[in-house]
């Protein structure tokens, strides 16, 4: 972006590299790359830094972990398990926890980093969704992000299955059930993954297999996707919030070197610090309390880590439906909760950018983010998805909720069975109304200014409050809302259908477009006394007296 040469501290190493690789122009150009500043842009970085910490702590753990299902009798320093039969995987995890210096801390940091990795991806995805940052040209990065979240779920599942404790064995048992419920290929899939019957297969293969997937294949895939994600982001430039100096053609922010680099470096340290704090002071996955896996044992409050909670919840509230025909059983009671809810959320999220383009007909490039209130349908749908996901998530903890809050377990199940359908609809309606209300407020601020706190008395004794125009920075933000483009009428004067509205798909499209645009509120500057767009009776003081308003 900048024509100025790089600072001295960079010049030296760059010359060294340039002499050998001839890449100075690349570095010079990119050292000055500008990054916009907003706190929510850091959420994705948490995931990146958690991933780095996961790689480092994970490597530490592999030095002592034995991915083996050989049975041993424990004789380590945790005396409450002395002499108990367990797999070598579990015994070596106990060894890491109690007999390796720093082992427990590393295990806990690793696990907390996994929790925060997934949590920050989700938070980052919500930020991207609600600000419309996934719009053209960034749809690919959106899909890559979804892919990484899905891979992260698998990575987490395989990771917490490795210690072979009672909780992880329970998780694997559910994994087996889910695999088996897939029609036709389910049993083969299950036998293929486990290498024989649950729990350990013919040669005790399941833990070694999960280990390879967990430490090699999936991290490799995630690393590749992270790289692609970053490179695409670098190439396309980061989106920015609507501010005064930000335009669709120019990014406004701080250069990578030195400002953004210092900030992001500091943020890595913050992430590491928070993980170290959690790892040191908050106990996570105490496998010694769970005990070794035993197919005959089970504990109440058996939950997966949070990112699998949605699946757990849908499984818990699913009615026991099964279809048996021609000697085959179709286990809808497992198949539906395993595939449908996440299918709706992830499939919907993946299709959304393209559906939105199709509905709005907006094929332009977007580099400035939307404010969530300025896209009420999108924000409403997003909140509906959040509610759907959140309710299923809570349903996954229904026994803990019932126990902690003294509720009836059955009552929670029935509540969630209905709430999961009603909740998203309510969330959509409420969110959309809130968005439209905020838009009206914006329109009001632009039309009438902000309350100044100055009360005027007119000669005939009436009191009014003087409104002043909003500050320029604020006006830029408010004016960032575009008027939704009206769809041309379905047929023109000659009865010729408008392009893109032919056939049943065209009909659906024009209906959806109408739903998207019909209650759009213009947030525009307009002249004195111009009252269009707020005939909704928001008669705050001064609003009745347009002549009093100074622009």
């Amino acid at each position: 972006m900048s024509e100025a040469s790089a600072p001295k501290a960079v010049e030296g190493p760059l010359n060294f590299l340039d002499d050998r690789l001839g890449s100075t122009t690349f570095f010079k150009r990119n050292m000055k790359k500008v990054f916009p500043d907003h706190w929510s842009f850091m959420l994705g970085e948490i995931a990146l830094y958690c991933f780095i910490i996961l790689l480092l702590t994970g490597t530490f753990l592999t030095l002592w972990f034995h991915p083996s299902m050989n049975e041993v009798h424990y004789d380590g320093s945790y005396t409450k398990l002395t002499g108990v039969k367990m797999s070598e995987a579990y015994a070596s995890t106990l060894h890491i926890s109690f007999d390796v210096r720093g082992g427990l801390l590393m295990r806990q940091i690793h696990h907390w980093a996994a929790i925060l990795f997934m949590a920050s991806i989700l938070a980052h995805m919500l930020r991207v969704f609600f600000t419309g940052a996934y719009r053209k040209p960034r749809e690919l990065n959106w899909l890559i992000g979804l892919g990484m979240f899905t891979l992260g779920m698998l990575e987490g599942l395989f990771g917490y299955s490795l210690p072979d404790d009672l909780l992880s064995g329970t998780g694997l048992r559910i994994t087996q059930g889910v695999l088996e419920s897939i029609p036709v290929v389910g049993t083969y899939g299950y036998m293929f993954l486990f290498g024989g019957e649950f729990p350990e297969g013919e040669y005790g293969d399941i833990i070694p297999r999960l280990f390879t997937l967990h430490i090699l294949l999936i991290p490799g895939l995630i690393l590749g996707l992270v790289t692609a994600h970053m490179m695409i982001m670098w190439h396309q430039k980061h989106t920015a919030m609507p501010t005064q100096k930000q335009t669709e053609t120019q990014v406004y922010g701080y250069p990578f070197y030195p400002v953004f680099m210092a900030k992001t470096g500091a943020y890595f340290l913050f992430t590491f610090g928070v993980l170290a704090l959690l790892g040191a002071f908050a106990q996570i996955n105490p496998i010694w309390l769970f005990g070794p896996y035993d197919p005959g044992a089970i504990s109440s409050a058996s939950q997966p880590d949070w990112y699998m909670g949605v699946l757990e919840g849908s499984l818990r509230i699913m009615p026991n439906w099964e279809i048996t025909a021609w000697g085959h059983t179709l286990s809808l009671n497992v198949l539906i909760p395993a595939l449908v809810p996440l299918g709706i959320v992830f499939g919907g999220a993946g299709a959304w950018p393209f559906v939105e383009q199709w509905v709005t007909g907006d094929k332009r490039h977007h580099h400035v983010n939307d404010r969530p209130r300025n896209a009420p349908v999108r924000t409403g749908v997003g909140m509906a998805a959040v509610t759907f996901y959140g309710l299923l998530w809570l349903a996954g903890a229904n026994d803990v909720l019932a126990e902690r809050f003294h509720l009836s377990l059955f009552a929670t199940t029935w509540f969630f069975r209905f709430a999961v359908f009603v909740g998203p609809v309510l969330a959509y309606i409420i969110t959309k109304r809130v968005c439209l209300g905020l838009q009206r407020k914006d329109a009001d601020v632009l039309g009438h200014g902000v309350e100044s706190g100055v009360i005027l008395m007119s000669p005939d004794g009436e009191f009014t409050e003087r409104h002043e125009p909003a500050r320029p920075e604020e006006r830029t933000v408010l004016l960032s809302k575009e008027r939704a483009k009206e769809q041309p009428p379905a047929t023109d004067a000659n009865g010729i259908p408008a392009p893109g509205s032919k056939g049943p798909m065209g009909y659906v499209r024009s209906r959806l477009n109408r739903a998207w645009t019909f209650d759009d509120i213009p947030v525009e500057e307009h002249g004195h006394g111009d009252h269009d767009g707020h005939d909704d009776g928001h008669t705050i003081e001064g609003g009745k007296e347009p002549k009093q308003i100074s622009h």
Partner: protein
Amino acid sequence: MKRFTAWRRRPWAGYAVVLAALAAIGVIYAGFSPQSDRAEAANATQAAADLKNGQQLFNQNCASCHGLNAEGTKDAKGNPIAPSLLGVGAASVDFQVSTGRMPAMNPGAQMPRKEPIPAFDTSIRTDYAEPEKREAAEKQKAQAEKNLADLREYVTSLGGGPAVPPAGAVDPKGGDAALGGKLFRTNCAQCHSFVGSGGALTGGKYAPPLDKSDVTPTQIYEAMLTGPQAMPVFNDTTLTPKDKQAIIAYVVQTREEPNPGGNGLGRIGPVSEGLVGWLVGIGLLVLAAMWITAKKPKKLKKS
């Protein structure tokens, strides 16, 4: 001496000796017998008084639901209000009353654990500095212990049943915690959760937490023995007394064991971990992000 020898040969001498011996025995017996008779009589009176006390306590506190003869009661539709206590035994009485579940306050899906009523509260504190206060508390505690014992005795007298386990059988130090852990995970964890922090059951019932120190080893033993409320009975053939002691050892040692990894987060598994991850982890990092992005470098300050 001669006279004695002469008398010895008289025909009545033998009878005389036997008579004398009987008399001597009689005298000696008489010397002791009235005493033990009195003691026995006193014991019998005491026992009767204790039983009477037990019965009185029963009538005051239990009979309104369980019936005057502990036969249980039913409502107008024939649904049981309270079960019969014939044959439940001392262990059951001790468990229900010492945990405060009985006498019940308001019937619900399950009777909650609460402070026992004063007449049976054996866990009151007696370590007062003032001698009078201490004495009064000790007296009250002794009375509560006696009341509980009398009530147990009375209910046992109605139909027998399992007795309160001796102290040696419930001592957590005498049990094998490793065996106890295995048995706990197989038999108890599905309701009480893996370290006994409790769990929800169907129909508003729940498995109460075992991880507080007010759940005494004796109560744990009695619960296994008698299966109170929603809990199944683990009799001595299902879990031998040794197994029971092992389970007690596991429960007590686990709840006394510190958390090596920091705060235990309630020891309820991944739910609280996820909550902490989102609230504390993401919360702190969002604050950090806000702080970092709010900082503007001096040199490059543009606005």
